[in-house]
């Protein structure tokens, strides 16, 4: 493989890794902290993309649309959490089924509203062109996505690790009953975490739009990738999500180039290896 192809693949890998991080960080937070297997997460991603496409169509600029669309998805997530998932606390199977059923419903609504044709979101004009790094030209927008992902990783880490709010969330995970006795409103915090996770997914769906487009089935395509990242990196671990996302990003792009027929299988191989050798994931905490 020649040098420039390798570089292009590397940049594409970083881009996909960045998108996957935004998607899976939210999934990992919700799964790791609240023990909710949120199978609507792929739908949040797709919904974010669709809503933003409409907003942009009405003349909203790209970044405002991304933020706003994320907020709408977060609000939807909050409603789902409070109205449905809350009633099923601790009933994992029920949560799996409800989130799955919701994902069917969302997919169908999207199909009705936005039709079956792929919708491409235009690249924001400021990032259209290419940037030259080390004498090689790269699409600026793709690099921007990686940068955004790393910035979000840092911000999420700061939020969870450095603020009192983050400490309260972690306290709620450590010992929910005791956290309540100490006066922490654990249930409200968990809603917040759920909304944050949904927001991240929706936002990722928007900024992924210029690259992936938005189309029916995108939800079912993204969800397993998020699962692989979380199984690989370990649930509830931001670092695990970050590393896992980039591993998956690289495997996917290079797998596609080297073994086009088996790209999808190559993607899952490290996950299988991790499962056999280290079931809690690379950065997961030992259960129990």
């Amino acid at each position, binding site marked *: 493989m020649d040098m420039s192809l390798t570089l292009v693949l590397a940049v594409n890998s970083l881009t996909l890794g960045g998108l996957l991080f935004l998607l899976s960080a939210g999934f990992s937070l919700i*799964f790791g902290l609240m*023990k909710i*297997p949120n199978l609507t997460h792929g739908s949040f991603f797709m919904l974010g993309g669709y809503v933003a496409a409409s907003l942009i169509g009405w003349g909203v600029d790209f970044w405002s649309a991304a933020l706003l669309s994320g907020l709408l998805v977060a609000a939807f997530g909050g409603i789902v959490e409070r109205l*449905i998932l809350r*009633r*099923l606390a601790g*009933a*994992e*199977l*029920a949560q*799996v*089924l*409800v989130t*799955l*059923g*919701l*994902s*069917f*419903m*969302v*997919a*169908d*609504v999207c*199909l*009705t509203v936005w039709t079956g044709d792929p919708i491409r979101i235009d690249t924001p004009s400021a990032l259209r062109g290419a940037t030259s790094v080390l004498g090689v030209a790269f699409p600026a927008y793709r690099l921007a996505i990686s940068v955004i992902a790393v910035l979000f990783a840092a911000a999420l880490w700061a939020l969870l690790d450095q603020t009192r709010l983050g400490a309260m969330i972690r306290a709620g995970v450590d010992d929910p009953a005791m956290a309540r006795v100490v006066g922490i409103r654990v249930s409200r915090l968990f809603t917040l975490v759920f909304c944050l996770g949904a927001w991240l997914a929706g936002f990722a769906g928007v900024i992924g739009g210029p690259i992936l487009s938005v189309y029916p089935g995108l939800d*079912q395509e993204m*969800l*397993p990738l998020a*699962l*692989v990242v*979380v*199984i690989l990196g370990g649930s509830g671990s931001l670092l695990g999500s970050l590393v896992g996302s980039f591993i998956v990003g690289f495997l996917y792009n290079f797998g596609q180039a080297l073994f*086009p*027929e*088996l*790209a*999808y*299988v190559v*993607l*899952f191989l490290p*996950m*299988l290896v991790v*499962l*056999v050798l280290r*079931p809690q994931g690379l950065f997961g905490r030992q*259960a129990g």
Partner: protein
Amino acid sequence: MKRVVVAAALASLATAPLWVGGTYYVNIASQILIAAIFALGINVLVGYAGLVTLGHAGLFGIAAYAGARLMNHGHGHVVVAAGALAVTLVGAAVFAALALRGEGLGFVMITVALGQIVWGVAYRWISITNGDNGISVSGRPSPLGLSLASPANFYWATFVVFLAAVASMAIFVASPFGASVRGTRDQPRRMNALGYHVWMIRFLAFLFSGFWSGVAGLLYIYYNQFVGPQVVALTASAEALLMVISGGAATLLGPIAGAMLVVIVKNVASAYIERWNFVLGAIFVAIVVFMPEGLVPGTVRRWRGAMAALRPRAAPAAPAPGGGGR
């Protein structure tokens, strides 16, 4: 009473092609039976072993693809059936060995991922699976010289297999091994302390479940004479799980009722409602929220409750269930 109902149900099922009217409905009846066999297989894991799988469409698909490839290689139907089921069992063993590394939700997630691997192979490994175009086969088998080409004949053949599946479930449930499987669902730790090998019991339950999923997949390729990647998509696994849950997991009739519900909603209702997926999702959510034990047990419970309310003196209320603890 119960026997009469079951006998009536069996009689009406056996004679279905004579009264449902029209090839279209006979074919839907066949689809229901295939789905029911699949749901019964999943129920072994989800209902009796308490292990929720979202990857079983993968096993169903492995059988269908293997069957299609073997048929297209010109093998006889005995070889096709035996070969496809053997491949499925190997697949089930691999699935089980990996999924049982996880507990609870971990198990679910791994089955999703495994199912997606099969999907990826079906979709992308074109030299084996023909990718998006899928694989077509020509002709249904003619066991003992009986042609299954007509919808009614195919229905009856499927019905025989269906009866075998139901019988194997009934025997399994009443057997010591069935009791062992349910024990590992309810109290895995206690089962270990009673000397049971919990992992091995679950592994075998997975194989049993995979076997019937494979049978259903094989019938599917006979019936449909075509298999494509959508058969192994996550949606397919979810639909199958919905059959089990909606009908009532860990019951014999539940998965059958659930299969009927899902197939009918999918086929018949989609003629009147444009977006059946939404309805399917909504049924999913409604059942989980309002009738979590499933339609069959839920209806039985409500029926009993109504009957008890009619009787003048009800039995004293049972103490609330739930383990004591300190």
